[in-house]
């Protein structure tokens, strides 16, 4: 207890010391870099939760804006990894994100936006807010600030794709040796090493998610799918919380990612639907005159489930990233390091809360998938 008391005393002193910096630095600009106003902070956070064509690791550029629309890089501490760009534009076009090497800027309604321009196979492209457009005769914006230029189909291996592949590799490295051991030794010997660790979660998914929701008879068939989405979502959530290089991508906060997972759950549910399930949708036990209302309602009802799954995971994870960044951003938008006394503990608190949310969202996604599959394979249909 004495130990805990000492630590809490040290933290209190540190907090007071940090807060005492507030008056002394009130007028000085401490932070040099890109974030100097709340508008720029907003842009920074939006940029951070979005996907990117190159993987930024560290640092930033100091730039000078020229009147002719070009931007000169004065000095750079930035380290990044260029990622492959794959476009379908009259055939496959391949490039590296470093090919977009001409920095430019454009102004509309007082807002300056930086963008990159590059030449791939004699065609000029523009990367504007991480979206790729044809340059044509120049970049033109509509009144909302979106480019009106045409776009090629973009199948690039972006930061999110790379991060997802990384988590696939981690999962394979974790699970394949364990699975091999079970194959060799059977399930009746005591687990060893990583089996001890993984078995807890596998048994949790089986006993808390699959068995109660799908039923004793049929749960085994859906275990591979449920385990896959559970560990995949959980690992991606956790990697998103790591604030430095191999992590920090917002994979499970990407609506395309969550939508694909939800569509897979939808397809699994529909294809495992039995006679009773389809009877409930297409021939509900109501007067025949109501069919014209009931059948569309039931069909829409099946579609809202994957939609809710998509939005829930996307919004929870993205909101978590935004809140942590916003707390840290208070220091930069107030231009005062004294605010760190408030924003660092709050950021830490939210980060720890996000650890719980990372598990909870993986659990809920898997649980609801199991629930939907369970309603589709239920034997007795006496509604």
């Amino acid at each position: 207890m004495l130990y805990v008391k000492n630590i809490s005393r040290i933290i209190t002193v540190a907090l007071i010391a940090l807060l005492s910096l507030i008056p002394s630095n009130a007028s000085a600009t401490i932070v040099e870099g890109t974030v100097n106003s709340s508008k720029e902070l907003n842009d920074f956070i939006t940029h951070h939760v979005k996907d990117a064509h190159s993987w930024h690791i560290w640092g930033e550029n100091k730039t000078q804006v020229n009147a002719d629309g070009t931007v000169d890089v004065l000095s750079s501490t930035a380290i990044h990894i260029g990622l492959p760009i794959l476009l379908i534009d009259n055939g496959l076009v391949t490039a590296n994100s470093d090919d977009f090497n001409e920095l430019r800027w454009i102004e509309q309604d007082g807002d300056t936006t930086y963008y990159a321009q590059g030449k791939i196979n004699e065609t000029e492209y523009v990367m504007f807010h991480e979206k790729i457009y044809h340059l044509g005769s120049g970049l033109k914006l509509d009144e909302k600030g979106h480019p009106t230029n045409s776009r090629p189909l973009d199948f690039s291996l972006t930061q999110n794709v790379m991060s997802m592949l990384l988590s696939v590799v981690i999962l394979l490295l974790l699970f394949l040796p364990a699975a091999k051991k079970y194959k060799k030794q059977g399930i009746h010997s005591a687990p060893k090493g990583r089996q001890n660790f993984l078995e807890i979660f596998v048994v949790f998914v089986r006993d808390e998610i699959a068995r109660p929701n799908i039923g004793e008879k049929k749960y085994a068939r859906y275990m591979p799918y449920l385990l896959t989405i559970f560990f995949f979502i959980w690992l991606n959530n956790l990697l998103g919380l790591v604030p430095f290089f191999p992590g920090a991508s917002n994979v499970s906060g990407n609506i395309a990612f969550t939508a694909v997972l939800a569509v897979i759950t939808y397809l699994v549910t529909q294809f495992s639907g039995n006679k009773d399930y389809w009877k409930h949708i297409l021939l509900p036990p109501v007067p025949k005159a109501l069919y014209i209302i009931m059948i569309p309602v039931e069909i829409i009802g099946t579609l809202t489930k994957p939609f809710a799954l998509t939005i829930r995971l996307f919004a929870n994870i993205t909101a978590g990233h935004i809140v942590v960044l916003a707390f840290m951003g208070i220091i930069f938008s107030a231009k005062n390091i004294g605010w760190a006394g408030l924003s660092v503990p709050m950021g830490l608190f939210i980060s720890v809360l996000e650890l719980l949310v990372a598990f909870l969202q993986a659990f809920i996604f898997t649980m609801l998938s199991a629930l939907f599959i369970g309603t589709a394979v239920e034997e007795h249909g006496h509604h």
Partner: protein
Amino acid sequence: MVIPAAIGAGLAVIGAGIGIGKIGGSAMEGIARQPEAAGKIQTAMIIAAALIEGVALFGVVVSMG
């Protein structure tokens, strides 16, 4: 257009807060009455809370768009 969106998101969150609060409170009462059923009550509570949260997030996302 920021303020109406903020009001909309806030209203959605108030609704969800009331809903999840009620679920949490009832689950607590249930567990206190029947501690041996705590596991089952918790699972049901999390599912119901997730469904409500989903609706609240719809509200927030629609306000953002």
